[in-house]
């Protein structure tokens, strides 16, 4: 009955490959990114990401402004986690200049960085749900993220681009009552993680969409230089806060969540997502400890000359942002402006492996894979 498909010449039905452009303006590319997808029917055979739509010459700009003025520019690299970017730059500069900052500054920085990590993971989780078709968790995530932004607004007036962590300190102390407000937020927020789990994480439809999809094996992740939650999702226990502690992260107790393949294979989209959920809990833990241990009195600036002029030399320092290792390479020639400043972006390396892990999947899965990588185009293009 009918034609026996096995006797058909496969090449006869094997049509031409089609080029499909996703982006630059596409809601699931998380910014302005163009993916040129080569498809064979519904199956993806090759993906070429085209970047540069958001290029603002960050590195070149930095050579023309003084060291203090670089900080507002670092804000705009990873604009969902500005505090962490400020932090990375400040840590690099302090290493270059050999400054010791007061104990209180360390604590303030850790608190705001971890709060910003929570806010950034909220965005990652919410938009990932949105990408695979779950609209509700997105609104819940934004409701809670808004509280963190309100806290930051109280702290420094800005909601996204803070310019708060400065070289040798922070721009100003916590307002009166801020610490209590952060405690209040943490108490409010901790039970909400369970809510996200009920809404999205263990939802069967969500698991079907993400488990076993876009597996990133550990060796591929390492060879591409992938870092952060994406690397940990592949089962590699690597977190700079533990492995190369900067600031005062060695004083805090926390775990590094890694992907276990609970719903499918180690390193699939669900693992990468779940690592972020678990990191929310860890960030809450760190913030609580930092708040408990923070000295209430004290100055929030290290003794610094009026003009920041680091000695001749160069430094490479990296910190753990919500997206992975953020590295700053700064060359100083003794003038008040950097001679060269290079930023190593974790989102860039995460995007670079998309061809490897998304090949062979359906177009709809590419969207899920891209969402699970949690890229921010501001940082990729700089």
């Amino acid at each position, binding site marked *: 009955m009918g034609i026996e498909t096995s006797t058909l010449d496969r090449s006869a039905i094997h049509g031409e490959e089609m080029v499909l452009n996703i982006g630059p303006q596409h809601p699931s590319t998380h910014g302005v990114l163009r993916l040129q997808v080569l498809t064979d029917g519904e199956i993806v055979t090759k993906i070429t990401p085209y970047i540069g739509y958001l290029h603002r010459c960050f590195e070149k700009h930095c050579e023309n402004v003084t060291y203090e003025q670089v900080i*507002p520019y670092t804000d*705009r690299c990873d604009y969902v986690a500005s505090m962490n970017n400020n932090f990375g730059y400040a840590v690099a500069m302090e290493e270059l200049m050999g400054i010791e900052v007061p104990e209180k500054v360390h604590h303030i920085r850790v608190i705001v960085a971890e709060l910003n990590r929570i806010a950034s993971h909220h965005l990652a989780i919410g938009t990932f749900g949105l990408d695979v078709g779950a609209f509700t968790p997105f609104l819940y995530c934004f409701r809670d993220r808004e509280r963190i932004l309100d806290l930051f607004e*109280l702290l420094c007036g*800005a909601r996204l681009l803070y310019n708060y962590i400065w070289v040798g300190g922070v*721009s100003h*102390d916590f307002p*009166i009552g801020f610490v209590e407000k952060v405690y209040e937020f943490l108490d409010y927020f901790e039970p909400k993680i369970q809510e996200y789990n*009920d809404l999205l994480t*263990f939802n069967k*439809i969500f698991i079907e969409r993400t488990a076993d999809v876009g597996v990133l094996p550990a060796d591929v992740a390492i060879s591409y230089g992938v870092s952060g939650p994406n690397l940990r999702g592949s089962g590699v226990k690597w977190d700079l806060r533990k492995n190369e502690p900067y600031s005062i992260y060695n004083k805090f107790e926390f775990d590094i969540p890694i992907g276990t393949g609970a719903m499918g294979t180690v390193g699939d989209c669900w693992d990468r997502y779940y690592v972020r959920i678990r990191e929310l809990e860890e960030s809450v833990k760190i913030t609580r400890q930092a708040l408990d241990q923070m000295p209430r009195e004290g100055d929030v600036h290290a003794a610094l000359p009026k003009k920041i002029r680091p000695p001749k030399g160069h430094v490479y320092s990296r910190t753990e942002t919500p997206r992975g290792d953020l590295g700053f390479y700064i060359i100083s020639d003794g003038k008040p402006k950097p001679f060269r400043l290079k930023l190593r972006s974790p989102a860039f390396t995460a995007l670079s492996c998309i061809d490897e892990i998304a090949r062979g999947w359906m177009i709809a899965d590419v969207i899920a894979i891209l969402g699970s990588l949690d890229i921010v185009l501001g940082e990729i293009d700089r």
Partner: protein
Amino acid sequence: MIRYFSNIWQSITTLLIGLRITLVHLAKARKGIVTLQYPEERWPRPERNIGFSHDSYNVIRSRLHVDIDDCIGCLKCVRACPVDCIHIKTVKVEKGTDILEANHIGITSNGTQKRLLLTRFDIDMSECCYCNLCVYPCPEDCIFMTGGPNSSKQEIDYEFSEYNRSDLIYRFAKVPKDQVEKYTPPPKEKVKIDVAG
């Protein structure tokens, strides 16, 4: 077969768990929990008494304002700005004296005697990145973001939209137009041309 039905069962139960949360949320929903009808309602801003132990903290990001009577033209804010959106021109005048026709008051409210007359003080708010860096170095505390801790000096203004981009250039200098010429020094006769540059 068992797998098929268990999948269906799991889908239904997990969906119901999710739905329960949304229903609980719906039951608890009150007005203003998330959505605000923006032009009619406004999100509360950190107000004037936000409780800083130090009153020189400038913790608001809105429109920049300059108390031009207090500005001594020291250019510290210009040097601090990472995007060069503050433009100042000054002329040397007699120290500490008022010049009435140019609306110039000789002494600031901090008691500093002014040596310079500001013929131009423009801030291009369309270029400003609201980084607050210009506010900190000012010795007379005369450049600040409106609202917040500065509400007593200037009411908050963060929605200054204009039809024309050039309307976003705020001109603070008070020297009348016809007087500017008088105070602008004549251009130097010999313009040196730097060939190598």
